[in-house]
């Protein structure tokens, strides 16, 4: 479970995150929705301890991210906005590198590796160097690398960015599987269809603030719009930066 309380982060005069708070529960998919530049990535970066909040608190399974960042990182699987694979290493070597950094022993590494390779359907690309991978192959490798240590909490920053339809469908299936395993899945997106199709709970962020935190149905009821897209536009107050 990930609990976020009143997060603030400013870069100079720009308040990127200005009082964000929400809870992402185990066994649920929580979507962080907002237009580009709303503060989604900055919020997530504070969750996985890359950045320190100016104010507020992040708790992962009850552990404070500022007080014990290493313990928090052990409980998180993170697909950052920057995928950043090592081009001169194969997919397998990329995954094994992170497994060793997580401190996995060889036996655990093998079992987890096999399970992830099957779930992500990436056996055919395992021993190729990642240079020249398609966007979909890159995301698969980056996800396998991020989840090799079997974390209870999964953070995915715009996971379907740049993927084609087939890859997107595969990824959605995989996220459903993570939810089915009882994990806490938190992902960000600016694509409404995706959030609507996947999420148990939607946290809408605009201008660094949470403007809605509901189930999809409650969102529709709250705004009086039957169409989710119209509901979002109404909440955010503009349709700038949103894509269907």
């Amino acid at each position, binding site marked *: 479970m990930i609990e976020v309380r009143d997060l603030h982060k400013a870069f100079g005069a720009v308040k990127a995150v200005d009082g964000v708070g929400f809870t992402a529960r185990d066994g649920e998919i929580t979507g962080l929705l907002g237009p580009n530049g709303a503060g989604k990535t900055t919020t997530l970066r504070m969750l996985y301890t890359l950045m320190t909040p100016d104010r507020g608190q992040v708790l992962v399974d009850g552990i404070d991210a500022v007080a014990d960042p*290493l313990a928090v990182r052990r409980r998180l699987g*993170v697909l*950052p906005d920057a995928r950043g694979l090592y081009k001169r*290493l194969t997919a397998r*070597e990329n995954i094994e590198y992170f497994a060793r950094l997580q*401190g996995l022993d060889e036996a655990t590494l093998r079992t987890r590796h096999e399970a992830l390779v099957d779930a992500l359907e990436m056996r055919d690309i395992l021993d190729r160097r990642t240079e020249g991978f398609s966007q979909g192959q890159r995301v698969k490798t980056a996800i396998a690398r991020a989840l090799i240590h079997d974390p209870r909490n999964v953070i995915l920053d715009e996971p379907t960015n740049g993927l084609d339809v087939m890859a997107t469908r595969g990824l959605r299936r995989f996220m459903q599987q993570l939810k089915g395993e009882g994990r806490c899945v938190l992902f960000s997106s600016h694509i409404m269809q995706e959030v609507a199709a996947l999420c148990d709970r939607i946290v809408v962020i605009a201008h660094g603030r949470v403007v809605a935190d509901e189930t999809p149905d409650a969102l529709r009821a709250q705004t009086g719009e039957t169409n989710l897209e119209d509901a979002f536009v109404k909440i955010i107050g503009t349709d700038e930066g949103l894509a269907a």
Partner: protein
Amino acid sequence: MNATVSRVRHAGAVLTVFLKEVRENLRDRRTLMSAFLTGPLLGPVLFVMLVNVQVNRELDKADKPLHVPVIGAQYAPNLVDALKQGGIVPDAAVADPGAAVHKQDADVVLRIAADYAKAWRRGEPVQVELFYDSSRQDTRSAVERVSQLVETYARQQGAMRLVARGLSPGTAWPVQVARRDQATPQSRAVLLFAMLPYFFVITLFLGGMYLAIDLTAGERERQSLEPLFANPVARWKILLGKLAAICTFSLASLAITLLAFAVVGRLIPAAKLGMELDLGWHFAGTVLLLMLPLVMLLAVLQTMVAAFAKSYREAQTYISLLMMVPLIPSALLAFLPIKAQAWMYAVPLLGQNLGIMQQLRGDGVSGEQLLLCLGGTLAAALVAALVTAQLYRSEKLAISG
């Protein structure tokens, strides 16, 4: 129990980063070429070529007939004959001796005054003029040769005149200088090899450079630093693993270059110049030891500079500027002959430079000097490492966008 387990894991993380960086960079052709081929072999090859050219030129000059334009040769046939015996070939007179030297048509021009014969017969001193350009280093031996031949001729003639008047030639030269050159064959070689320490430092520098750039600025540019930092490993451990990889590559570079110099040292005809050069195992071992802390210092400095840069290219620019720094002590020692003080050994780069030169002179490095050199550079490396670790903790480092 718990503490032991986590410590094992920590050492593991540093090792994991180290192994991955080494493996990844062994697959990069440019890094390999620079660290193991062009970097370490350029020095020795260049050296052999330079030294051979110089040696052959020196040897040539001693034996070869030297062409010198002589103005007024007809006034002093005896002098010209003496010059011919000394291996000088008098060429036709030139109209403007100053211009001929200036335009490098001639290395040296000899002018004999028209009243030479008249004055000679009267027993008065006569003048011959030598035109040359002292800023042209390569003509120095030619000028020296002509001038010595003229002086020898003058002294012979003077002695004969004294004898003819019944005097001992010794009366005209009451004081004679006897030169006692204390240079040893090794110390003579030092002049020629003053730039050797710089070659070693540059090799170290090039050996680690691409790695240093790639491991910090490159990783940042390729956006792989952010996922890396999401792992439960303290950043200083990641930094340590990366530094170890850089050090390994630059040490390997240095080892290759020392090996090449040991082989090539036998090909340098130093003995022909009256020099003795020992670039063997003992020399290589001492250099390696002296350079060990410098390897660390350079790796840390390169990483520090790369951490400031936002892109690979930017880092490359900064690091090329950094490459100028090792030139300073070498140039200083080459142009300003300073007597080495003990404290100088504790200054990074300068200490290594002095130590290597001392080893080349055949004097050896004393224990105190060795300790100062190792300690001083190691301390500098440690301070730089702490600063770099601080840079690595910055939030901005991981973010490329």
